[in-house]
């Protein structure tokens, strides 16, 4: 078995005096698509945020290539592409300015911006201020980064083998239509074929990549 990309070790998470999950361990390998399931309040978002390093677990650790993501955070952030509940889009900037900033911040060339906006059907809107766009369009500006990351990978244009390889996506399909979801699933397959991995939460059933998906189920605990 090849070495794991990301490994969760004995994670315990406590929020407001409630144990969300206790002693949770798993490994994620290149090529994995992992869906985290569970009812509302079971701690899906908390788990994703702990994996991304935004939240600290009460106990346990997350390791990227055998080193803790806390001690080696810069290398991990290089490999990480996280999209949270909020898309990180500024209303005062245009769609393209938003994307360009996010690409530059994560070491992706702005040359990919146009093609990526095209992929998420925002061509023609690139100069509109984001405050004039809808919630779904905001989400798509954020998702455009995924296409840019894959493009860079296919062009051997990324920083190191694992650059932007670990995708952690919190409800990426929110406000996205059917066709968009299908496109994204194709994108996930292409990404994992390149040796990347996807960790996501969603309330929708994945159809196209269903047989590839591994599931982690969180129970609601009292």
């Amino acid at each position, binding site marked *: 078995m090849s070495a794991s990309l990301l490994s969760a070790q004995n994670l315990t998470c406590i929020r407001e005096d409630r*144990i969300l999950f206790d002693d949770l361990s798993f490994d994620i390998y290149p090529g994995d698509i992992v869906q985290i399931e569970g009812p509302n309040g079971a701690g899906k978002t908390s788990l994703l945020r702990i994996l991304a390093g935004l939240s*600290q677990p*009460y106990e346990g650790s997350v390791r990227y290539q055998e080193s803790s993501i806390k001690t080696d955070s810069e290398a991990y952030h290089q490999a990480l592409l996280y999209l949270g509940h909020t898309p990180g889009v500024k209303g005062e900037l245009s769609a393209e300015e938003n994307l360009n900033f996010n690409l530059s911040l994560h070491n992706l060339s702005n040359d990919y911006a146009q093609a990526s906006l095209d992929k998420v059907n925002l061509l023609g809107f690139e100069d509109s201020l984001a405050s004039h766009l809808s919630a779904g369009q905001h989400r798509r500006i954020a998702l455009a980064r995924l296409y840019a990351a894959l493009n860079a990978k296919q062009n051997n244009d990324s920083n190191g083998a694992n650059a932007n390889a670990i995708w952690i996506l919190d409800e990426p399909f929110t406000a996205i239509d059917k066709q968009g979801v299908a496109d994204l699933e194709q994108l996930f397959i292409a990404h994992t074929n390149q040796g990347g991995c996807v960790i996501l939460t969603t309330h929708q059933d994945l159809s196209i990549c269903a047989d590839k998906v591994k599931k982690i189920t969180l129970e609601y605990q009292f």
Partner: protein
Amino acid sequence: MWKWLHPYANPETSYQLAGRLQPWFTGLSAVLLLIGLVWALAFAPADYQQGDSFRIFYIHVPAAILSMGLYTSMAIIAFTGLVWQLKLADASTAALAPIGAVFTAIALFTGAAWGKPMWGTWWIWDARLTSELILLFLYLGVIALHNAFEDKALAGKAAGILAIVGVVNVPIIHYSVEWWNTLHQGATVTKFGRPAMAPEMYWPFLLCLFGFAFMTAAIVCMRFRTEVLARNAMRPWVRALALQASESQEAK
């Protein structure tokens, strides 16, 4: 190097330890305060200038010293907590801040009460009193920030960072206020006379200081224990404790 400390990073162990230490601190504090206060208030000689009103010194100065000391220790604990990720440090910040704030308030109040017969006015912008007032604001900031967070662990961390920022500022503030005070001081203001203390004043003062210090330690143990319990309410050992307590109550 930190191995010997490690068991105490466990909430249960440190809860027990604080419980074992608390009666000692309480006892020591009671003895020291009893001797110290009686000696200071009844037997120590009155000040030749200030008369009996000088005796408030035996409460004012220990309170002022402890108010500064507690803030510093709060910041040191918060710092170690941030660096070594000790969860218990958060509980300690929460335990220390209100005690420190109360000592600061006592120092301010006794300072004002002492000032009335000395200066003829309750408040004077004396450098020490002004610094103490600002210290009170810093304490209140830490407490307010701690209360504003829903999540106890985050509250402790945020308050800890503020305490560290504050402790870097305390000497700067103190120095600037001292400097401001000498700059604006009129000729009529008389500062506290601090002549070399006679030994018959010195010993009761020391007893009072340590008495108050041990009292603080006892209260810190008590508050620390409740904080640990509140933060670990869902842990099995806390549940077992609660069960034990309710059983023994029923037995009575």
